[in-house]
């Protein structure tokens, strides 16, 4: 029996899987997504359940949309039609989807809609670490922030309930640590029969936001958020634990995943019973009454939140408002500390970081408690611990293992060809996917990158402003995501750009999700293949060539020919992702490369390709055949040193 469909019990689940379970328990009808780390496992799990457990899985519609804006609009449409909808994306995806988010909050969504924004503090796999809690404030949506797998399940359910009740979109915000933690989850029963769709009643005065309607709906939104605030006041996810001794204690208000670090740090310091802790999990709108009471009952308050000082600023503004409205001024309110204690807005928090800042804060606001710490076991250990940490740091630089394009990856062939031909003469405009790794030496084929789809547009702008040659690289999924509009613009505005579409037939970086470029045989009967070459030509590109990416000579010659032309030129380099071909298409290349001469050509090939299957055995270069992807690009680069042989 599939754990995620079990009727009860307990399971060890990934945070993202717990979100799936929560949505299933809520009776989700419709899921749309654009994949992106760390959000991808949510939709992928729904896809897997549909494929592997069709008989047992509840009925739901799932789609991989071409981008986040499209995905959110689909979910809005489904929710207008009364379906409980879930839309998943990574944090930067919400920038793309911001347009429907703002206006859907105005018109409201009868079926309910939960939007998963998976943030990435620490930039584990992202181009920025933006804090999407700001979107809840900006677009006026309720916000839930789980910190554990169990909370991920519970809050997903609660988000659906609140969304349906208020008919408003609700944001569920996870972070990399929450999406990718693994923890115990209680399984509660799944609905026995499908939840009924909410009825759509034609009401253009609500659902068609022409200016007069929009102005009216803005006020309705404010009223709905008032109700959401009341819900937050009563939410079990916003809870206070008071010290046993009572009195007028010090307090900490902690939000989202920072609550974990706080709990562990207080345990280490032995202060679990000494400080009042206000845990915020349903974090927007803020439960202002409850917070006000906390500010009055504590003698000092520290605000703990990973990322921007959003909660802290809101609390300071709340305290100012309260102080202005009473005669005694701010005397009865706790002093608020936050980022000024050295709690950074950069990167991820950790238990150590939180513990150190807590100690700093306590030293100022409660010297008696601070003194207790230094007498604990932990306090005595600390100096030794710090010294030993520094001691155990390797003295010399250890051989690094930077991420690298896989052995057998066709991107390497195209990048090698481009660098051989254009060297530093061209400027390379890169995009988002595995192929961003082209930035690493020796390939060095990424000079700038802004966001999804910007290879074409930022490349066009760079070429126009500088008059220099720009070679842009984009993958197939990114081309469908937001490359097509940029290409239409490049043709329309007569830009000068050589665009290479690296078509590996899948969304490789995030785990091989479908996109319209995927072969029909892989898409099955639920989706239709779109031909990239036909689209490029239909967008008005006159110089468009398609090559097999592993045919090095052909790639090089075509690039040279296209470089002679002016205007928008497109090379489509086709070759399935080597991992996808092996795992999903059952295609494993039958030959592998072998060095048969240890000459300069061999060494130069190693230096120019840096394929991870190359290794040294003693003084000799060899190919690790368990890693070799069989692309045989190295054989084309070094024909006198490398031969193919059967696997």
């Amino acid at each position, binding site marked *: 029996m599939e754990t995620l469909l079990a009727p009860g019990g307990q399971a060890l689940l990934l945070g993202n899987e717990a979100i799936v379970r929560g949505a299933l328990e809520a009776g989700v009808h419709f899921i749309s997504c654009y994949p992106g780390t760390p959000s991808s496992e949510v939709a992928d799990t729904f896809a897997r359940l549909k494929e592997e457990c069709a008989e047992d899985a509840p009925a739901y519609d799932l789609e991989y949309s071409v981008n986040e804006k499209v995905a959110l609009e689909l979910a809005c449409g489904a929710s207008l039609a009364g379906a409980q909808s879930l839309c998943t994306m990574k944090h930067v995806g919400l920038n793309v989807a911001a347009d429907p988010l703002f206006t859907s909050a105005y018109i409201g969504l009868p079926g309910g809609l939960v939007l998963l924004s998976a943030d990435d503090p620490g930039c584990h*796999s992202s181009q920025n670490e933006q804090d999407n809690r700001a979107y809840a404030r900006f677009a006026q949506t309720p916000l839930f922030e789980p910190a554990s797998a169990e909370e991920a399940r519970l809050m997903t359910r609660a988000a659906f309930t609140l969304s349906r009740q208020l008919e408003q979109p609700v944001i569920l915000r996870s972070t990399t640590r929450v999406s990718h*933690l693994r923890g115990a989850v209680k399984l509660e029963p799944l609905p026995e029969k499908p939840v009924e769709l909410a009825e759509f009643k034609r009401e253009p005065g609500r659902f068609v936001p022409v200016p007069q309607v929009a102005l009216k709906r803005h006020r309705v939104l404010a009223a709905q958020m008032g109700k959401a605030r009341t819900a937050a006041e009563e939410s079990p996810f916003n809870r206070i634990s008071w010290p046993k001794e009572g009195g007028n204690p010090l307090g900490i208000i902690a939000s989202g995943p920072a609550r974990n670090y706080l709990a*562990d740090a207080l345990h280490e310091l032995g202060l679990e019973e000494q400080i009042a802790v206000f845990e915020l999990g349903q974090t927007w709108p803020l439960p202002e009454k409850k917070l006000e009471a906390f500010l009055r009952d504590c003698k000092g308050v520290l605000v703990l939140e990973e990322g921007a000082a959003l909660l802290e600023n809101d609390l300071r503004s709340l305290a100012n408002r309260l102080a202005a409205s009473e005669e005694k001024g701010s005397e009865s309110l706790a002093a608020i500390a936050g980022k000024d204690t050295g709690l950074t807005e950069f990167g991820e928090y950790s*238990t150590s970081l939180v513990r150190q800042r807590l100690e700093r804060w306590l030293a100022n606001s409660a010297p008696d408690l601070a003194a207790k710490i230094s007498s604990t076991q932990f306090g005595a250990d600390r100096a*030794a611990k710090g010294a030993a940490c520094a001691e155990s740091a390797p003295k010399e630089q250890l051989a*690094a293992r*930077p991420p690298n394009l896989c052995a057998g990856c066709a991107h390497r062939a195209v990048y090698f060809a481009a660098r051989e031909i254009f060297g530093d003469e061209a400027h390379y405009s890169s995009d988002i996917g595995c192929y961003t790794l082209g930035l690493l030496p020796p390939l060095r084929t990424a000079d700038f990158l802004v966001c999804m789809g910007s290879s074409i547009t930022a490349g066009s702008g760079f070429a126009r402003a500088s008059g220099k040659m720009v070679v842009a690289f984009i993958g197939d999924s990114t081309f469908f995501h937001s490359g097509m509009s940029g290409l239409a613009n490049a043709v329309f505005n007569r830009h000068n750009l050589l665009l290479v579409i690296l078509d590996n037939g899948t969304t490789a970086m995030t785990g091989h999700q479908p996109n319209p470029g995927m072969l029909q045989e892989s898409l099955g009967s639920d989706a239709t293949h779109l031909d990239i070459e036909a689209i490029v030509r239909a967008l008005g590109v006159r110089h468009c060539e398609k090559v097999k990416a592993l045919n090095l000579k052909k790639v090089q010659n075509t690039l040279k020919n296209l470089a002679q032309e002016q205007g928008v030129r497109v090379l489509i380099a086709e070759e399935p992702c080597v991992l996808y071909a092996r795992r999903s298409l059952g295609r494993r290349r039958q030959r592998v490369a072998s060095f048969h001469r240890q000459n300069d050509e061999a060494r130069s090939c*190693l230096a120019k390709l840096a394929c991870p299957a190359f290794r040294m055995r003693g003084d000799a270069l060899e190919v690790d055949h368990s890693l070799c992807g069989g692309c045989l690009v190295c054989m084309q680069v070094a024909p006198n040193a490398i031969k193919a042989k059967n696997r």
Partner: protein
Amino acid sequence: MEKPAGAKRLRIFFAGVGGQGTLTASRLLAQTALDAGVEAVGGEVHGMAQRGGVVESALLLGGWRSPRLDLGEADVLLGFEPLETLRALVYLRPGGAVFSSSDALAPLAVALGKASYPELGKIQSEVRKVASQCHFFPCRELGQKAGAVQSGNTVLLGALCASGLLAFGPDALKAAIGKYLPPKIQESNLRAVDLGVQALASAQ
């Protein structure tokens, strides 16, 4: 969720190279702990960070809430590759325990002549400076002996479970293997547990 009494808090750091099965091993141990009634939270990093690079995960037992380990916090370091054991040593608290494979997987930078691979003896002496106990096992060879190279990771898990550091022993690990691993790899993994237990016993 109920808090099992008496389960000591313990933080374990796993380090390996992409494709070695580091995450699978940490999941198996997490599942073992949970079935043994020990609270467990694991932390993994997916995506770009793991392509051909270093893979790290964490398992925190006995009531910790955060899935993340910072420098000097790990009670136990499990290294599936010696260079990664050395790289991850900063995560170990002084006096912690290290269980590591002694089989090297040289990074590409070594083949490119841009870096050298440290001698195993040097790695071991660095580890001994911080750890109160450390064990290096030829996991590839032991895995092969168990029936599949990939089960080499389970040798380390077996040794850890036999060390007495955890609230459960090798039998709990075996039960989890029987419950959660695909049937065709169960036998080799069960043998790997025994080999890990034996390897630890003969080292002590």
